[in-house]
């Protein structure tokens, strides 16, 4: 049986008195690959923050697996690239090294192990030659890979990505998604990603969680990808097609 990493038990999420998601009951299992989708403003980022433990539930509880008393669940987090302020004159190496900070002592400086780990991840992601380059001089796709590298150097149990293909061109979008899938297969990494671009993620994820008007439903990708399900979630007629073995989703007005 799959091992539970995170369990939401009757959890309600929101900010202040405002409740955004009610009575969530679901589990994230080891080796899951989950896409959280839904219209803009539905509460995807709120759920993501609760998964990461930086937003406490208003009601109910979120239970995290502890591998041992001293070893809590470790997250690798990839924020939206727009939230990173490029004014900071930091190199790729310096940014990726931040992913190791939680495993260094309070006042310890980076050791050889930390540096080796950074370079091995940079090599795995194909950006080792960029180690000394300034982050702000990179393209969107390469910046995304740098943030992915920072998440990976912490040797996470679960990788959480917030809109990883936002602001990327078509080629970078494809490369990024292929890379995330590769991580899931090669490293058996549990992955949770938020996206408002259903078309981008349906051919990659294994489970989909839909959020809409305080409703939450998580299911296997095959079950979720039914036209009637999607039409109900998005409030518009949805058609699912196939193109060269990949699924594509089209929204259609009612009269078509």
């Amino acid at each position, binding site marked *: 049986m799959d091992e539970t990493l995170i369990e939401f038990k009757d959890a309600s999420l929101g*900010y*202040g008195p405002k409740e955004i998601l009610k009575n969530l009951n679901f589990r994230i299992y080891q080796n899951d690959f989950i896409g959280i989708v839904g219209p803009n403003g539905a509460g995807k980022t709120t759920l993501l923050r609760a998964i*990461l*433990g*930086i937003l406490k539930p208003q009601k109910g509880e979120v239970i995290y697996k502890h591998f041992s008393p001293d070893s*809590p669940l470790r*997250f690798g*987090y990839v*924020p939206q690239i727009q*939230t*990173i*302020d490029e*004014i*900071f*004159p*930091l*190199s790729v190496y*310096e*940014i990726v090294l*931040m*992913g190791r*900070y*939680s495993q*260094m002592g*309070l*006042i310890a400086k980076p050791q050889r192990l930390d540096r080796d780990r950074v370079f091995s991840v940079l090599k795995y992601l194909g950006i080792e030659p960029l180690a000394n380059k*300034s982050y702000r001089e990179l393209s969107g796709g390469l910046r995304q890979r740098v943030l992915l590298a*920072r998440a990976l150097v*912490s040797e996470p149990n679960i990788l*959480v990505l917030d809109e990883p293909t936002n602001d990327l061109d078509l080629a970078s979008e494809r490369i990024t998604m292929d890379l995330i899938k590769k991580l899931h297969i090669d490293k058996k990494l549990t992955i949770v990603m938020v996206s408002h671009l259903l078309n981008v993620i349906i051919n990659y994820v294994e489970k989909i969680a839909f959020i809409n008007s305080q409703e939450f439903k998580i299911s296997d990708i095959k079950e979720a990808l039914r036209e009637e399900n999607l039409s109900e979630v998005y409030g518009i007629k949805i058609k699912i097609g196939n193109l060269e073995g990949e699924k594509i989703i089209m929204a259609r007005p009612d009269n078509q």
Partner: protein
Amino acid sequence: MNMFSAFQIPFMQKALVVSLITGGFLSFLGVYIVLRRIVFVGIALSQITACGFALGFLSGINPLLSSIIFTLIGVILFSVQPTGKKVPQESIIGLAYALAASLGILFVAKSAQAETNILNLLSGNILTVTNSQVYTALTVFCLVAVFHFLFYKQFIFVSFDPETAATSGLNAKLWNFIFYLIVGIVISTSIRTSGVILTFGYMVIPAVSTLMVVRNLKKAFLLSVILGLIATFSGLYLSFVLDLPSGPTIVTVLCVLSGLCWLIKNKSPID
């Protein structure tokens, strides 16, 4: 009088020591302040500190104590962001600045002694620093510098990407509060000797100048401190030989250095 002779005079020596320490550390801290886009937190905290001093002079409470209490309130206000995301942080900074400036004026309006002291706080009077002010500045800035050196990782991560820092197990809110607390302590120590104008100048101008020409953060810290020290040394000397107020002269020299950085920013960036 040449530079060597000028700095043989005891009051000039004390002024040089205190302004080199203050200028050096504020120029370092300024890099964080400019990068975090909270430049006006500096001027607002300076004004809040001055307001605390004014209340102290008026009420008979120890002015240093009242200024520290006021600064702490400002630190909490800016680090906690009580209005959440509904109102931008700049508006809270603006509100705090306007309130502190107004209250400061109201406090001094009722006290002749306070008026003189507050004018000194605004313009600064490095040439009249006492031995105890020199020792206080030396102790505070050395302690804070060591703290920053030891916890560089935490400060840089929380400044650059607080959300990811929080997900990695770092208490981002606590480190953010500590950062603002240090800014508050440094400002309240600095404006007693350097005044509001010079304190703000040190906090902003060297960092802005440096970030125009440097593409490496550690070098940015170093160059910012060097610019702060050069401006202090030359500004203090110029103010002495030209018989000008020291604080505004140092700020003017900082601006000249900033202009030089702007001229070379595209020609020779420092990697």
